[in-house]
């Protein structure tokens, strides 16, 4: 069974890290850790002091509030043309390649390389016996042996 958010436990170290990262407002904390954070705050005076310090920085940051523009954005008379949905390049490539073919032709097209490979394999690889003596001697020259006699 999956633990509920309220069952999540939080270390003091993690709680301090959350305050340092997100500030003092619970709405800004990660949702999954919010309840555990509030529970820990209720228990720990040390954490509450840390939260007060975070809140004083928040109050300064909150002063920086650019208002939206006076004249709201209005849509132009004519909007540009829209692009078609994104197609996966591989699917697009295969579709473009097979576009003149239909039904069984596509199946035959896809099966051709498989059949070629199958028959090629049936023939088997060249064995040493197939090689002529001349071909063998060309690839494996016999070193000349000189005699001192």
């Amino acid at each position, binding site marked *: 069974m999956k633990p509920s958010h309220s069952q999540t436990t939080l270390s003091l170290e993690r709680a301090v890290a959350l305050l340092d*990262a997100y500030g003092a407002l619970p709405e800004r904390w990660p949702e999954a850790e919010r309840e555990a954070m509030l529970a820990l705050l209720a228990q720990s005076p040390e954490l509450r002091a840390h939260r007060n310090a975070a809140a004083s920085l928040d109050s300064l940051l909150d*002063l920086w509030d650019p208002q939206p523009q006076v004249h*709201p954005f209005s849509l132009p008379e004519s*909007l540009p043309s*829209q692009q078609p949905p994104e197609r996966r390049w591989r699917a697009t490539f295969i579709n473009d390649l097979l576009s003149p073919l239909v039904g069984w032709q596509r199946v035959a097209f896809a099966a051709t390389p498989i059949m070629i490979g199958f028959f090629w394999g049936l023939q088997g690889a060249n064995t040493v016996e197939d090689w002529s003596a001349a071909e063998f001697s060309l690839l494996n020259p016999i070193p000349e042996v000189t005699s001192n006699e």
Partner: protein
Amino acid sequence: MRQVSRGDRDAFAALVEIHAPALERFATRMLLERQRAEEVLQETLMKAWQEAARYDPEKARLSTWLHQIAHNLCIDILRRQRREQPLAENAETIIDSDESPESLVHTQETQRQVTSAVRALSQRHRTALILTYYQSLPNRDVAQIMGISVRALESLLVRARRELKTILEEST
């Protein structure tokens, strides 16, 4: 989104209405320049329209996908800027407020400090902070946009916030 991909202009207008403000704030924070941010917004939305058929909801949420487009455009601009001129030279401090003159002066000063502190961060630190903190995107989505793991993102965030804290403490 399916309707948008079929050329439904009304569906696209609805998408713009929902997502444009967040995307513009993101681009403004990334580029620290409103005019360029507007250009990025426009280009992001045009790309979303053109490539709507390519959006895959199984890969990313719509807002993540849109942020990813905007992020890539911002990175291109920042790279070009880095070649042409340093970011600090043309960055703006963007302020819009209805506060009283006294408190406005104080707010403006603090905003200036925060802006210059954020500006001092490296591009990756700034991106991580903006997407997570300001855009409030889930960590997995931010990691996906930046092409990094969640652990790597958290490490970037810790360093970004630590650096910001140091800069802001020094400036006050």
